[in-house]
Structures are given as structure tokens and as C-alpha cells.
């Protein structure tokens, strides 16, 4: 409660009295171009959770430190963007700092999310060198073709994430006719012990490419990524406006010989290599009453079957029993090492629905929404009502609750909490 009071007080500092005067002045000196620019945001995000102490993930995470049912955490974030432009060159840096308080402990993190140099010798050609995000794909909640990116949180898909160190070059050409635009992108991705280490064998060079076209009023991308020590990936995506209020999109990705860690019958690690196909189909529809519906179906070809999920839960049960009987943590450590089961979308079939009402009751800059993700394999789902409001320029308030619904043995039924309530206060500068 004291966190909440504190944040509301901070928030009230930004709220200015209404100004009824009509002043239409606009001086060009307000927007003079500067070589050096900086901006970003400061954020505070208190979170209240109800832990599900019967769930498998609770046993896995808190087996040695029993928690109260109600938990409170507080997160602070600062994101800073810096850029300097001179001639054909532009340097860009994005820094992120996190400070978290939970379970009576403070933790902090400071990362260079992006830092790269762009060179644009002409409007047709430009090259980027350094750490940056390459966000491929058209999906809202998932992007199976985002081969060179960290997985995004489908409940917060716009969240800033860390990029990879790459050299990328774009060639752009416009045409008149049915083919309006063609962009060719080539990418080199070095992998060393401390650089892009999760992208394959160390001391190797991966490479990829993308062809973008605007053809028959449809965005179409073809992309690939390959190299020594990684599974080759091939993808396609598209997006198109059907009418002035309907957009459709889709993605398909094929991966050869990717590794998938599963639990075998003797509770031991089994690493299988296989080919797999993932795809996504989505639609966005805006009604006359300004309600937007986002609907996406996602098939995760690398996801775990219901049987594989159950085997994993059995490993946690067995590890937890072993810990209680003998204090030995080996099996729980093994279960913790299965990061694939702890991703945002570990299973195979998902449905995403988001309903967003823009500015209801004539309240401008107020956008309530309801989001749900359903695991179609086990019927469990999450439900997230959200209120987003910008009371004054550059101050954004977001309140959201998250209900996780599912039986024992289901994805959302086995998460460590079954309810979360969070308030996010973000100030842009």
C-alpha cells in the first residue's frame, strides 16, 4: 500500500491544471534539428501477486524458501536513447537500467540494449554495424520468423529488449506498377564467447538475409538464417489491408535439425534433433464504434506436446519429493535447466485475442482492453483486463490484472501465481 501511495504522489506532481486559453502559436524554433538527441522514459511498476502454492512452478522456484500467499514486488526502470548524427553517419545507443525489489531482496541490472553506427551513403543503400534489434515478422503476440531476436512477451509485445551484434546492409528500390518497393537485406552475425553466444557455436560466423516487397498492396518478406553450429531457418510473412478497417497478416517458419530438450521416461535429459514448422495467422478489425479486435492463431512447431509437459511436471514432482526427503536438489536443478518449458509459450497450439476500446465515453487518451491467451492443447488460459490512460502529455498510467485459469497439469494452471495486479507509471522525456 505504501508503494501505491508513493507512486500516486509522484504521479500527481506531473498533473497540471487545465488551460482553457486558445493559443495557436507555432514557432519553428520549437523543433530546430539538433545533431545530438536524447530521450527515453522512467518507469515504476509495483506488482501484487497471489501465489499458487500447490503449483509445480511454485515448487520448482520456491522449494527452499516458502513464500506467503500474497507477494508484493516493485520494479523501477530507466530507458535512455542517445543519438548523434553527422553527415551520412548516425550513432545510436539505447541503455536500460532495472531495479527490482521482491521477497525482501533488491536486484539491479544495467544493459546496453542497442549501440550501433548507421551509414547512409545514399537513399538506396545503408549499412548498420553494432548491437541492434532485428525485428522480423508481422504478428502482434508472436513472431516465428524473428530469427535474430529475443522472444517477446505476448502480454507486453512492445517492451524494449536487448539486441544482437550484427553487420546489416539494406538496398532499397522503388518502382511504379504492382511491385512498389523491393528491399534486400544482408546480415552477418559473429558468434564468440561474449558476443551473440546463444546464437550457435563460438568463433563462427552466421549469415542471413531478407527480401521485402510491397507487391499488389501486400507486404511480403522472405528470410533465412544459417551458419555453422546453428539450425538453418527459412521464413515468409505477409500483411495486407483488406478494407479501411481490416488488416490480415501471417508468418511461416521452417527450422532444420533444431535441438529440443525433453524429459525421457527415466527422468533424464533427452536432446532430440528434428525439423519443425511454426506458423501464425492473424486479423485486426476496427468496428465503427472504435473497438479493435486482434485475433491470432499460433502453431509453435518447437513447442512441447501435452505428454512432454506432463513428463516435465513429473520430473518437478519427483525432484521436490527427493528434496523433501533427503535435501538433494539435483533433480530440481535439472528441471530448472529446462528453459524451454519456462518460455512465454512452451506448448504447441495457441489462440490470442485482444479487444481494445479506444477512448470510450468520450474520455480521450483512455484505452481499456481485454487480452486472453489460450493454450488450445490443454484448455488453460490467461485473462488480462487493462486500463491505459495518458492524463497529461508524456505521462502514461497503466493498470492491469492477470488471471491465470487452468486445472492441475495444464500450462496456466501450473504457473507459480494465479493472479497478478500491476500498476505502471511511465514518464517520457
Amino acid at each position: 500500500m505504501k508503494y501505491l501511495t508513493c507512486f500516486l504522489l509522484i504521479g500527481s506532481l506531473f498533473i497540471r491544471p487545465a488551460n482553457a486559453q486558445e493559443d495557436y502559436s507555432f514557432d519553428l524554433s520549437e523543433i530546430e534539428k539538433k545533431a545530438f538527441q536524447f530521450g527515453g522514459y522512467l518507469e515504476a511498476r509495483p506488482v501484487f501477486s497471489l501465489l499458487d502454492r500447490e503449483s509445480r512452478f511454485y515448487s520448482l522456484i520456491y522449494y527452499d524458501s516458502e513464500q506467503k500467499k500474497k507477494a508484493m514486488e516493485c520494479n523501477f526502470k530507466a530507458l535512455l536513447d542517445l543519438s548523434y548524427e553527422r553527415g551520412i553517419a548516425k550513432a545510436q545507443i539505447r541503455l536500460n537500467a532495472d531495479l527490482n525489489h521482491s521477497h525482501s531482496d533488491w536486484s539491479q541490472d544495467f544493459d546496453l540494449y542497442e549501440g550501433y553506427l548507421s551509414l547512409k551513403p545514399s537513399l538506396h543503400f545503408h549499412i548498420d554495424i553494432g548491437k541492434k534489434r532485428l525485428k522480423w515478422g508481422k504478428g502482434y503476440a508472436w513472431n516465428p520468423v524473428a530469427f535474430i531476436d529475443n522472444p517477446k512477451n505476448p502480454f507486453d509485445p512492445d517492451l524494449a529488449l536487448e539486441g544482437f551484434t550484427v553487420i546489416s546492409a539494406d538496398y532499397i528500390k522503388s518502382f511504379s506498377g504492382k511491385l512498389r518497393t523491393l528491399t534486400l537485406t544482408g546480415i552477418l552475425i559473429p558468434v564468440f564467447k561474449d558476443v551473440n553466444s546463444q546464437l550457435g557455436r563460438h568463433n563462427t560466423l552466421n549469415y542471413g538475409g531478407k527480401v521485402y516487397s510491397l507487391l499488389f498492396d501486400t507486404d511480403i518478406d522472405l528470410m533465412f538464417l544459417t551458419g555453422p553450429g546453428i539450425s538453418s531457418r527459412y521464413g515468409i510473412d505477409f500483411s495486407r489491408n483488406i478494407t479501411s478497417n481490416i488488416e490480415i497478416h501471417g508468418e511461416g517458419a521452417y527450422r532444420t535439425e533444431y535441438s529440443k530438450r525433453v524429459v525421457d521416461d527415466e527422468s533424464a535429459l533427452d536432446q532430440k534433433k528434428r525439423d519443425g514448422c511454426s506458423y501464425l495467422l492473424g486479423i485486426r478489425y476496427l468496428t465503427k464504434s472504435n473497438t479493435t479486435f486482434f485475433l491470432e492463431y499460433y502453431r509453435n512447431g518447437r513447442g512441447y506436446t501435452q505428454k512432454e509437459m506432463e513428463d516435465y511436471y513429473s520430473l518437478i514432482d519427483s525432484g521436490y519429493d527427493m528434496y523433501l526427503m533427503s535435501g538433494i536438489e539435483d533433480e530440481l536443478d535439472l528441471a530448472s535447466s529446462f528453459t524451454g518449458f519456462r518460455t512465454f509459450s512452451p506448448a504447441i497450439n495457441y489462440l490470442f485475442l485482444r479487444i481494445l476500446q479506444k477512448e470510450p465515453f468520450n474520455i480521450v487518451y483512455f484505452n481499456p482492453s481485454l487480452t486472453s491467451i489460450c493454450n488450445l492443447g490443454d484448455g488453460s488460459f490467461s485473462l488480462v483486463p487493462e486500463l491505459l490512460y495518458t492524463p497529461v502529455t508524456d505521462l502514461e498510467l497503466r493498470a492491469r490484472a492477470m488471471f491465470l485459469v487452468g486445472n492441475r497439469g495444464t500450462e496456466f494452471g501450473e504457473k507459480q501465481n494465479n493472479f497478478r495486479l500491476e500498476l505502471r507509471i511511465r514518464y517520457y522525456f
Partner: protein
Amino acid sequence: MDRIFGICLALLMVVPLSAQDGNDILKKLDRNLSPESFESYRKLINIEPNGRRKEFVLFTVKKGADKVAALFLAPDSEKGRSTLRLDENMWLYIPNVGRPIRVTSMQSVVGGVFNNADILRLDYAEEYFVEKTEDLETEWLLHTKAKTNSVAYDHLRIWVDKDRILPKKIECMTEAFMLIKTIHFKEVKDFGGGIVRPSVMETDSPLHEGYKSVMIFASIAGRELKDEVFTLTFMPNMETLRK
């Protein structure tokens, strides 16, 4: 003879002008509002009934009949966003999101009364044809209809100042002629380079009772631009076009 000539002249005054004349007026009005290719700086102000305001500043470039792009320079929360329109295709680039996403003309990237079609407007004659022209005393009233069903408004009624051939008021309507919004053009200003046009456009809507959105032009000037400026790949780099 003089009497017959007088009657004929009077008849000509009351008979509506042909649609062809109306379309010519619409084309002339477009060219008086802006050159075919130009750059401009504008401010959008959303004003709530209690007087509270939110301001956006945009740098905009347009080329030919179907290419327009805009970069948000203010406020801080929107800085770096850019929007692109190629004919009926529209995209929004948000630096935090890091990739252009398709948007539709009926959506609004700024909230309030303006939608995307208002911000990334093409020439009126490009999207509408004149069905009927009424000859009023000092104005023409053009009744226009959308050429396709992918534009934001099915019908426009445009009051045109006869002297300057500039719009004075535009009513935007649905297919069933329900009024969505009214745009009032004010404060004619000489921007140089032969561009003399209203610098303030006030918009109100019966759907947003008491709310008002204002667009103010600070500068508008002809500029030659390459087609490659109007591509998805270029959207994150629009700032480099500013001098």
C-alpha cells in the same frame, strides 16, 4: 434582346455547374493548398471540453498523388514515430516497437478527432470525384463521393472560396450522409513560393461533443524527393530528411 440575354444569364447563375467543372475546381483547390511534392511542419492540438490540450508536432513530406510520410517531433512520448502512406497502404513505425506495422485509415495514431486519413491526407481529387456543384454567392459547394470504399469518408461537402479557390469548410460524412466531422479553414497566410493558403484548420465532430482538434501549418514549401523516401525501410530514418 438584352432582356433575353439577361434571362439566359440569370438561368446560368442558378443552374448547377457540371461535375466536370467541379472536378476542375477540386484539382485547382488541391494545387492551391500545396504543391504536388512538398515538405511541411505542422502542429496538431487536441482540445478537450475543459480546455486541456495535447500537442503534436509533425514534419511531413509528400510526393505526387499517392505518397506521404510524417515524422513526430513532439511530444517526447511520440518523438521518432513515423507514419507512411502509399496510396491506401498505411504503416506506423514506433521506435520502441522497432518495426513498421500496418494501420488502417480509420485508426488514429494521435487520439481525439483526427484519424490517420486526416494526418496523411492525399489530394482531394485523388480520392473523390464531384457529383454536383452548387454555385453560391461567393462560394461553390462541391458534393463529392469517394472513388473507392477504402477511404475514410464516403462523402465530402466542400465549400470553396471563389476568389482564392481555397476551402472554407468541409463536412465529412458516412455513406448514409451522417456527419462525422467538420473542418473549418482559417487564417489564410502567405508561406512563400506562391503558396497562399489557410494556416489553421479547426475540426469538430458530433461524435466527440465539445472536443476540438486544430492543425496549424508553420511552413510549407515545395521539395523534390526520391521515391525511396516513401518505403518501410526508410521509416526509421525520416529524421535525416530534416535540414
